[in-house]
């Protein structure tokens, strides 16, 4: 196991966050309280812990006091974990001997209704942080040399676009395409919204561009057989089926998955599908429009009215596809507009549940409405009933927009608006790459907002509609974003990976194999050490999820930073008794000018006060005199105003800005 020696000289910094924390939490009292905690060498309260001036002070403190651990009680670690890890590093302290305690999002803001209780809770949180850091270990990031080559799986628009970008950024690119031709689904499409370009031409253009770039190699009729290795050094084994079969091993620093989607195909009889040639899906309909000229005929009959049933096979509360496919509403509007553009005397009736033509795509909905398309709303529980008799398609529908009127329609053609599904082979691909699949069967990115396009496997990224339904623009944007992230990793000479991985206590381990069974990443293996069979961990493939730890009957597995000592001592910290004195006047509350705290204010406040000392000034005037950015000065002036350090003194001559004057004077 790791080296868990108790720290002896800990530095504690409690942040006011301008007032976001100190308006509700008694920061000063907590700061004094923490001075008495075991192993705490210094305890300070600071106006803005993240401010440059404080970071410099922290570096000095660490070096001068020879601190062996630091705790910053401030905002969520999601915002400033790396800021303070870097502070530690700059001061020569291992960045993993730093703990951030969230006393803002999970304390002062959440309990602003009970400031006294918020202070008590903050005391527990900070003590837990001190306990945790006192058992923290100095960890060294795993350093890996990266190969500057990328394997892209899937040569659709997303894959090809990312290939062009990655090659421009100086990487060697290998595109693996299962089909005989590149271009994916888009290659089969005709006019695309909004440019009017043809899908075929677009993909052909991209292919020609790729052919001109010597660092991109495109393999068609090729499948991925196995993937080994990890970020910086994968080996992708592929089988090329062009002239006979050939197996090739491609070294790659990263892998981009752009395998796309499968179009949903309705079940036999679903809304009459398969019962008549006049009931077809949206992709089939688009092809028919493309091929027909003069008039649209099906089985010799001229088509003049088309009904569209939306959300076929999608948004099913009880079915497999619970999600909205997002692109089909727009695609249907576009198809209806194309229909009217190409053929005369046409009528479109849309049977929809909700119209989701988001963003600029709303223009198409508007155009379709203006050209006279009819829109009837149905509910999932009360879907249209389709019957075929004598070659005629009959639809019974309840329009929920007109007092639930029962309508009977007999269109010449019924189009079932189907959406996108995860590829039928997505499970095999997920197994090869060890990437997780969501409930919708598409590949899972770590987080749609915080870490999009990344998977939990370092170096394996997602682009385009293999992650979820997307239109062409969104697909290309996501693959370009993945390309940028991959390049950011591979452009460094050596890669540093988080050392937060599982570790085995070889003395306690008796190799039962349970840990290896639950590990989805094959990071645990059997090995022999000193004549004993034990579990070993591959640090490069271990994701640090910790799934292996609770299943060990001997409790022989721990994940760095989440050891028994660290977690259990945190729990003890939460529970330590706290007694606080009643707060008399909180900064920011009525009656508190904050004058007594002047020594704690950032230097920029003093500078602002000196600017407005002789005459009232506006924010742009202060910024100009100080040669600072307007935004920065605005932020500080607003905070100073809140704390009654300065105040507004009328407007300027143009009546555009407030003038500010000091409320307290510098001594």
């Amino acid at each position, binding site marked *: 196991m790791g080296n868990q020696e108790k720290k002896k000289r800990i530095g504690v910094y409690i942040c006011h966050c301008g007032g976001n924390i100190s308006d509700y939490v008694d920061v000063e009292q907590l700061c004094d309280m923490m001075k008495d905690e075991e192993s705490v060498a210094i305890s300070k309260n600071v106006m803005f812990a993240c401010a440059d001036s404080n970071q410099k002070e922290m570096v000095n403190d660490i070096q001068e006091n020879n601190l062996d651990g630091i705790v910053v009680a401030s905002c*969520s670690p*999601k915002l400033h974990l790396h800021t303070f890890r870097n502070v530690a590093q700059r001061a020569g302290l291992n960045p993993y001997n730093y703990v951030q305690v*969230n006393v803002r*999002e*999970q*304390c*002062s*803001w*959440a*309990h*602003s*209704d*009970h400031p*006294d*209780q*918020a*202070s*008590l*809770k903050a005391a*527990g*949180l900070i003590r*837990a942080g001190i306990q945790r850091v006192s058992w923290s270990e100095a960890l060294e990031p795993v350093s890996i040399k990266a190969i500057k080559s990328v394997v892209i799986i899937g040569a659709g628009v997303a894959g090809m676009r990312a290939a062009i970008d990655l090659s421009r950024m100086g990487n060697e690119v290998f595109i693996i395409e299962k089909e005989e031709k590149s271009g994916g689904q888009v290659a089969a499409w005709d006019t695309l919204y909004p440019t009017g370009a043809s899908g075929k031409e677009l993909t052909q253009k991209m292919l020609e561009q790729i052919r001109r770039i010597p660092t991109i190699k495109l393999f068609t009729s090729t499948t991925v057989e196995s993937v080994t290795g990890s970020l910086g050094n994968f080996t992708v084994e592929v089988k090329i089926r062009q002239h006979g079969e050939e197996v090739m091993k491609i070294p790659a620093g990263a892998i981009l998955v752009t395998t796309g989607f499968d179009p949903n195909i309705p079940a036999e009889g679903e809304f009459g599908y398969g019962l008549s040639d006049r009931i077809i899906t949206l992709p089939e309909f688009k092809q028919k429009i493309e091929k027909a000229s003069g008039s649209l005929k099906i089985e010799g009959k001229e088509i003049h009215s088309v009904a569209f049933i939306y959300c076929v096979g999608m948004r099913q509360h009880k079915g497999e596809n619970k999600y909205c496919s997002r692109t089909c509403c727009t695609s249907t509007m576009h198809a209806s507009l194309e229909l009217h553009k190409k053929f005369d005397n046409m009528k479109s009736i849309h049977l929809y549940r909700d119209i989701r033509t988001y963003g600029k795509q709303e223009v198409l909905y508007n155009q379709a409405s203006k050209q006279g398309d009819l829109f009837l709303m149905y509910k999932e529980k009360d879907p249209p009933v389709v019957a075929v008799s004598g070659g005629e398609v009959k639809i019974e529908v309840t329009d929920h927009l007109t007092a639930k009127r029962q309508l009977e329609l007999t269109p010449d053609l019924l189009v079932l608006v189907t959406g996108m599904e995860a590829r039928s082979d997505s499970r095999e691909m997920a197994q090869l790459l060890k990437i*997780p*699949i*969501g*409930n919708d069967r598409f590949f*899972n*990115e*770590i*987080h749609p*907002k*915080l*870490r999009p396009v990344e*998977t*939990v496997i370092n170096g394996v990224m997602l682009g385009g509609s293999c992650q979820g339904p997307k239109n062409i623009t969104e697909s290309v944007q996501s693959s370009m974003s993945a390309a940028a992230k991959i390049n950011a990793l591979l452009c460094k000479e050596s890669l540093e990976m988080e050392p*937060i991985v599982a570790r085995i206590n070889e003395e306690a381990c008796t190799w039962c194999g349970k840990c290896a069974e*639950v590990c*989805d990443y094959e990071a645990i293996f059997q090995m022999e050490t000193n004549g004993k069979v034990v579990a070993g961990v591959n640090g490069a493939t271990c*994701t*640090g*999820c*910790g*799934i292996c*730890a*609770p*299943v060990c009957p001997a*409790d022989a597995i721990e*994940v760095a930073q*989440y050891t*028994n000592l660290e*977690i*259990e001592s945190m*729990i*003890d910290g*939460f*529970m330590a008794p*706290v*007694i606080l*004195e*009643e707060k008399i006047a909180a900064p920011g509350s009525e009656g508190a000018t904050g004058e007594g705290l002047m020594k704690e204010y950032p230097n920029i406040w003093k500078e602002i006060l000196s600017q407005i000392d002789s005459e009232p000034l506006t924010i742009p005037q202060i910024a100009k005199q100080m040669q600072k950015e307007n935004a920065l000065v605005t932020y500080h002036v607003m905070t100073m105003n809140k704390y009654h350090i300065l105040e507004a003194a009328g407007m300027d001559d143009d009546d555009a800005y407030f003038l500010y004057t000091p409320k307290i004077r510098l001594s």
Partner: protein
Amino acid sequence: MEPTKQSPKILVFSTDKISDPGIDQAGLRKLHYSPSVYVISMPCSSGIKPRWIMHALEQGFDGVFIAADGHECSYSAKCPDHTNSIINEAQKLMQEKNISPKRIRMAALCSVCAEPFVSHMNNFSKILAEIE
């Protein structure tokens, strides 16, 4: 000024990437819940050891809440099963020490589940207050 005796102490195990941002959001939106709720964030709820749950209950926490990722877990599709096993294991240990199995609870929370988190905390507090 001492903690109010009425509000039960709850230890929440959250997850770094999914449920902890949801709990942060509750604070960001100033949605209030009991100040006796303390959170430890983990990479994945499947990595919580039953001995930690026991330690918390023995040290005086009234209940332990696991804010799991459920099917959204980015590590393993089997995460809900693994987390369930941990709870079962913990409940066995709790039974041996005569601790009510109601003192442990789990729910899947996502990164925007601010309101559901608050309502889980309110409900769990009520349940814990009713346990003798």
